[in-house]
């Protein structure tokens, strides 16, 4: 249940005079259960990589093998099933459905996947509790702070029990406190549920919390190291 990319490329405007190699012949392996930060300057290809690994963008060449599935060779239909069964997404701007309550946002996709109502409810409540929002379950996103919204988004991403979560700059809109809280929660879920987290960021504070740090420049991997400061979460009762 790992991620492996082999000579993975995404090239925009390939046939023009100025092709853009958003991801350039990338070889990368990420193991199940890792807590990985992808950093790099703007335009370095972080979003593009996450989208390809998550099966919403198609590589130009090379392979991305996620949990045994080769994303590069999947049909549209296959990708839908792949995403449904394997991937959760978290976005910079939370992207909750504004007309649904926190609880409904978390339940929504599970329900549409045909899980029983009781099952969805139980799972959603459990997740909201884990992200510390069980008291706010009936509030709509507009009544929650940014940090709270992003925590709901984390719960939503985890609801269908994905093996991997792709989080594209999840803390970019959050202040220091909320960022720390969110990372606590993500790390806790990473440890408790065994979910692999891959998140992109510019933020130095976020990077220090990652287990592994991958640095990108112009679509190429320039650094890949374990974080010596990484501390496993002590299963606190928060």
């Amino acid at each position, binding site marked *: 249940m790992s991620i492996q990319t082999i000579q993975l490329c995404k090239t925009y405007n390939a046939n023009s005079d100025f092709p853009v190699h958003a991801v350039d012949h990338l070889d990368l392996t990420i193991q199940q259960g890792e807590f990985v930060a992808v950093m790099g300057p703007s335009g370095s290809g972080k979003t593009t990589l996450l989208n390809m690994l998550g099966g919403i*963008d198609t590589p130009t060449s090379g392979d991305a093998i996620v949990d045994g599935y080769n994303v590069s060779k999947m049909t549209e239909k296959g990708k839908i099933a792949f995403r449904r069964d394997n991937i959760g*997404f978290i976005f910079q701007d939370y*992207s909750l*459905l504004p007309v649904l309550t926190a609880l409904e946002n978390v339940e929504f996709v599970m*329900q*549409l996947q045909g899980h029983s109502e009781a099952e969805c409810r139980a799972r959603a409540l459990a997740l909201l509790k884990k992200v510390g929002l069980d008291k706010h379950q009936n509030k709509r996103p507009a009544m929650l702070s940014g940090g709270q919204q992003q925590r709901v988004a984390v719960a939503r991403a985890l609801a269908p029990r994905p093996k991997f979560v792709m989080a594209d700059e999840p803390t970019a809109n959050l202040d220091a406190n909320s960022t720390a809280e969110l990372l606590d929660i993500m790390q806790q879920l990473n440890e408790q549920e065994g979910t692999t987290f891959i998140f992109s960021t510019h933020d130095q504070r976020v990077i220090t919390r990652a287990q592994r740090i991958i640095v990108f420049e112009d679509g190429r991997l320039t650094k890949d190291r374990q974080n010596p400061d990484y501390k496993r979460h002590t299963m606190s009762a928060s």
Partner: protein
Amino acid sequence: MLVRLAWRNLWRQKRRTLLTASSIALALFLSLLMRSFQEGQYTSNIENNGKSGVGIIQLQDPDFRDSESIDELLPSTEAFIHKARKIDNIDAILPRIHGFSLASVGSKSKGVLVNGIAPNKETDYTHLADKLISGQYLHVEDTDILLAEGVAQYFNVSVGDEFVLYGQGYRGQTAAGVFTVKGILSFPMRELNNSQVYLSLNQAQILFRTNQQVTSWVVSLHSLDAMAQTVEELQNAYPDVSVRDWMDLSPELEQSIVLDRVSGLIMMYLLYGIVGFGLFATLLMMTLERQREFAVMLATGLVRMKLLLMVFIESWFIGLFGVVIGASLAVPIIVYFYQNPIRLSGDLALQMLEMGYEPIMPVSISPELVVSQIWIVAVMLLICLLYPMWRIVTLDIVSGLKGGAHAH
């Protein structure tokens, strides 16, 4: 869940949703009113035309249509007609003899149209007796004659005078007789006023030597809407008889109705066309402004089909509001005017009264009209949905995630 989501999405843009639904409601309201008045008018025209003598359906000998000859006849016996009496939708059945004859008084002569009628039944349906301006109406065994005003003036005769008819009867026999004028009738339509004379059926059969036969049986109905079925039943009961409906009997009337209806329908479709543009704009906005939201939904595991379904449900809600609001405004008004028709006044009313028509603006209450409006709205919705749906089908998740307003 999808339905709940669709429902809540509608109220994100309350004003737009309500405006769009109202425009559908308005179009439906106006169209339904217009069509109900139109169809009511047509029904009344057809019935009035029937009462002017033609009836709604006539039974004739198949050859009579072309020849209009006194030789092509049907039996006038109860044995013949009793099958028709069993058909529920038939209101009245009147025997008729229509024949041509030369009339002469003194040195003057003129062609007249001779009508042999069952006097009581006839006036029950056509109110012929009300057109009497002097003398008396016929009774069943009467041997006297009624003249239209124009005929009486032409010959300068009045009640009590003698009137001679001379023509050809059944199978070439001579049809001649002398009759006493019993009454004078006034018809608002000149052709009728200058040509018609009336005998009792009995007397007409004697004059034309037809024995127990008539040229036609004139049928009136309880329900015009069920006419097609009645025609079929009659045709089954009388396979060898020509069953002619009012469209066959009065093609001019049918044409004028068709023309009027078409112009009404054009108006209606124009109205819906304008409303359709507004609806299209709304549905398109609803889709385009949520590109990013849709992309997020797709990325987080929603199947495209479900997304389409959600937008579909949203737009059907709008259509449903429109239909419900429009119909619930229009129907009570139609029912009211059905029970209390608008009474006309002025010259038009006088003219109608003269024709023997009630001077009202009738409306028709027809579920079919309502259903057809709903159909139009439904088809309009489907057409307006095509492009937005296509946008969703082709929505690229990656570019959707990047761009697009994120509507909160």
